């Protein structure tokens, strides 16, 4: 099956003063309809900027134009005019953000914001737009949706606001949904509801999901494929079972060892030593070499190639250990 979205060697430069740093460095992946790809990593590793690069909503300045290619239906989104991009953004590729409080406009009712989407992308006006908005709210499990249309974002709870965001993103039935930490601001019961909702909607509409998260639990629940990112680069990629059963990159292992698990006894957690290097202070060679317990001389120089692993054909790790 051909991928619905194909990202090839995406590199997003960011300018600080006179220096230019790549906040997303040579990242490639494919999204398939009905499948979920999870981008995992810690704050500052470039996962959100990847999403913003695809949507072309990078803060500019400081970001410069991304290089590489984002192929959607035969066209490179990075080369499109802003006018053409506006037809795709929000309509064919929907996005939900981490914090629904700051992503919804506080001075408009949610109805007004939903109807705006219908007018802009679906050419629906008046009654039709209203009924489409009601339908969108129904789909995400909001009851009394007609009354809810006249509510302002502050009148809704966090979980409800996130549902409204999802409703808004899915109103045009996009092929791709980018979910940037969709449940980080929610507590555990609401998180389970929102994840269930996303799964159900995916099963019904068959869209591809790009899920950005730092929570391995969410990955375990949702993902089909996983890319682990560290310091702007992908360090390991594979199917979700490859990653959970046969994690290979020392950084991935470190991430897993840091998790307090429910069933485990109270032995000491093994955190990754040190801290993530700041952008601009990335070491040469493998960027994890300052914190890696298995560091070797050849890790200190040059690019680390992606080695294919025996686990499965799509499992790769950028580490000399896998040679």
């Amino acid at each position, binding site marked *: 099956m051909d991928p619905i979205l194909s990202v090839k060697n995406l590199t997003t430069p960011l300018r600080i003063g006179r220096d230019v740093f790549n906040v997303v460095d040579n990242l490639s992946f494919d999204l398939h309809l009905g499948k979920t790809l999870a981008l995992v990593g810690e704050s500052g590793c470039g996962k959100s900027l990847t999403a913003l690069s695809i949507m072309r909503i990078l803060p500019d300045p400081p970001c410069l134009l991304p290089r590489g290619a984002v192929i959607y239906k035969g066209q490179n989104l990075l080369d499109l005019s802003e006018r053409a991009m506006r037809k795709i953004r929000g309509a064919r590729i929907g996005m939900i953000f981490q914090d629904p409080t700051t992503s919804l406009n506080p001075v408009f009712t949610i109805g007004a914001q939903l109807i705006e989407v219908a007018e802009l992308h679906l050419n629906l006006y008046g009654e039709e737009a209203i009924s489409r908005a009601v339908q969108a709210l129904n789909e995400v499990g909001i009851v009394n949706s007609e009354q809810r249309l006249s509510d302002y974002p502050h009148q809704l709870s966090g979980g409800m606001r996130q549902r409204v965001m999802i409703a808004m993103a899915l109103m045009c039935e996009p092929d791709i949904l980018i979910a940037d930490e969709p449940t980080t601001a929610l507590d*555990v019961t609401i998180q389970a509801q929102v994840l269930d909702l996303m799964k159900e909607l995916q099963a019904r509409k068959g869209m591809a999901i790009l899920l950005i998260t730092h929570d391995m639990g969410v990955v375990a629940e949702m993902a089909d494929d996983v890319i682990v990112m560290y310091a702007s680069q992908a360090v390991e990629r594979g199917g979700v079972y490859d990653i959970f059963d046969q994690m290979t990159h020392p950084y991935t292992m470190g991430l897993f060892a840091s998790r307090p698990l429910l069933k485990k006894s109270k032995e000491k957690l093994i955190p990754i030593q040190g801290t993530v290097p700041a952008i601009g202070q990335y070491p040469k060679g493998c960027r994890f070499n300052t914190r890696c317990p298995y560091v070797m001389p050849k890790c200190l120089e040059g690019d680390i190639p992606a080695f294919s692993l025996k686990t499965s054909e799509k499992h790769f790790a950028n580490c000399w250990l896998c040679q």
Partner: protein
Amino acid sequence: MTIPLLEAVALQKYFPIYSGLFRRHVGEVKAVDGVDFKLYEGQVLGIVGESGSGKSTLGRAAIRLIEPTSGKLYYRGQNFLTIEKNQLKQMRRQIQIIFQDPCASLNPRKTIFQSIGDALVYHELVKSEEEQQAYVVEILKKIGLSPDSMHRYPHQFSGGQQQRICIGRAIAMNPKLVVCDEAVSALDVSVQAQILNLLVELKEIMGLSYLFISHNLSVVRYICDHVLVMHRGKVVEQGIVEKIFNEPQEPYTKKLLSAIPPDHPRKRHLAAISVI
């Protein structure tokens, strides 16, 4: 029988709701509605529950950061609510708090030396500036930061380091009890593990007790001895952490536990959870 370090009896905190032109008192939000607990020395008591269940309010009312509406509070058997002012200051030193967002709880215009050191002067733990300096260096060592970071400002540190500074500020007072209000929730998982290890280590070295408020159940399971499950201001269930997690009795606790994301994709649960 040993006396608990902190004991709450039927603790209540109601927030009034005012409405209309004359701001008439029309009702109350029962944020904490009759909670009892005992926290013994050297123990970690976890408070779990969803957002809005009154966890944080309980944490704050229990140490009188906000005045409880009614109920009784005992600190080492002493009535904490009717205590004299000069004794209260003494007690404030023994009870410290760490908040969720380290960036927001550190004064951006104070250096780390000031953030940690000012309270030392206020509580008269140090007599001279040299002593203060030496004390702060010792604290920085305890929390795993280098002494030369003393004269830097909070924005020059990463989130994990900032949380270390907040912890340092709390333990500088040689407290008995530290309230951790979502202290690790805003941190990345590898940093979270470092901070959790630091908390466990400090607890053992300094004989601390924690009142650990969190919505992250795996973290609570890891660090706590006892746990208290809250829902809508009331305690649903409390007991030893293993017992609550392995044999939850109340339907609410069961629901909360079933909502925890799985630790392996094999254990995916697709069961829909009803809207609360």
